[in-house]
């Protein structure tokens, strides 16, 4: 069994926010918390690209490393989950995460932080599978039903792929070959642009 992964194809994402809506609806995520969001780079500039971002379920997760109460654990399938009964809402994981995945609901007046909430890869948490307790704390446990995360399954253009890393890598590879592009679709140049490219923000100030 390989590890569960998300992969977002920036060539396909149309910034419809269907994944965000699917996640919010499936897991009944509270107001003010977004487990998934769509980020657009160079918005409004020709050639803009969007990707859907949530917890990437890192192999060596920094949130796990910095948690002072060790409330994180990783399942056999490589999904990073946490126990909300242990979480103290300190926010260290938020600072450590390069993707801004950990979210904190407002739990009271004066911006008091609640317990951390993040994408679970629709795998629930350490409560009884698909119990009311699990749903209220972590959302739906679709993996236990043999289903994939709602965001990936709902994606209209199938830009967001989720599942076994080997399988989604194969799907993406087939797409790349079908598009007729070669090695240029991978790597540094694709992610950050060719060397010497002018930043798009170089526009006259009004």
């Amino acid at each position: 069994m390989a590890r569960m992964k998300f992969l977002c194809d920036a060539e396909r994402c149309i910034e419809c926010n269907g994944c965000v809506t699917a996640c919010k609806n499936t897991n009944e995520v509270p107001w003010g918390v977004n487990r998934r969001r769509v980020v657009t780079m160079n918005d409004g500039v020709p050639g803009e690209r969007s990707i859907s971002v949530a917890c990437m379920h890192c192999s060596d997760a920094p949130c796990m490393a910095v948690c002072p109460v060790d409330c994180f654990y990783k399942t056999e399938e490589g999904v990073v989950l946490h126990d909300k009964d242990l979480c103290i809402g300190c926010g260290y994981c938020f600072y450590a995460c390069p993707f801004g995945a950990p979210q904190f609901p407002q739990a009271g007046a004066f911006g008091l932080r609640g317990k951390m909430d993040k994408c679970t890869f629709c795998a629930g948490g350490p409560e009884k599978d698909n119990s009311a307790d699990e749903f209220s704390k972590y959302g739906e446990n679709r993996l236990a039903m043999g289903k994939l995360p709602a965001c990936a399954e709902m994606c209209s253009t199938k830009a967001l792929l989720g599942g076994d890393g080997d399988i989604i890598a194969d799907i993406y590879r087939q797409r790349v070959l079908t598009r007729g592009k070669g090695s240029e679709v991978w790597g540094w140049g694709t992610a950050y642009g060719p060397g010497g490219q002018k930043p798009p923000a170089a526009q006259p100030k009004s």
Partner: protein
Amino acid sequence: MRTLVVGLAAIVALGLAGCGEQPQVVQYKQGKYQGKPDAKPWDSPEFGGKQADWERAINTRAQHQNEYARTGPSGR
């Protein structure tokens, strides 16, 4: 005299009983997950603990994301 000694000993014993230090928090193990254990996804009623069945279901579902496989060669 004997009653007085026994009485004093009892008072001292009772008085010191409040000084005992009992651990009031869980034993913390640095770097170890301290929370509740989680069940495996294939332990659900749908799969009855059969990991192979669960993996097959998940992998079939993952292939549904590949529209080239769904539509066949004409879809390319």
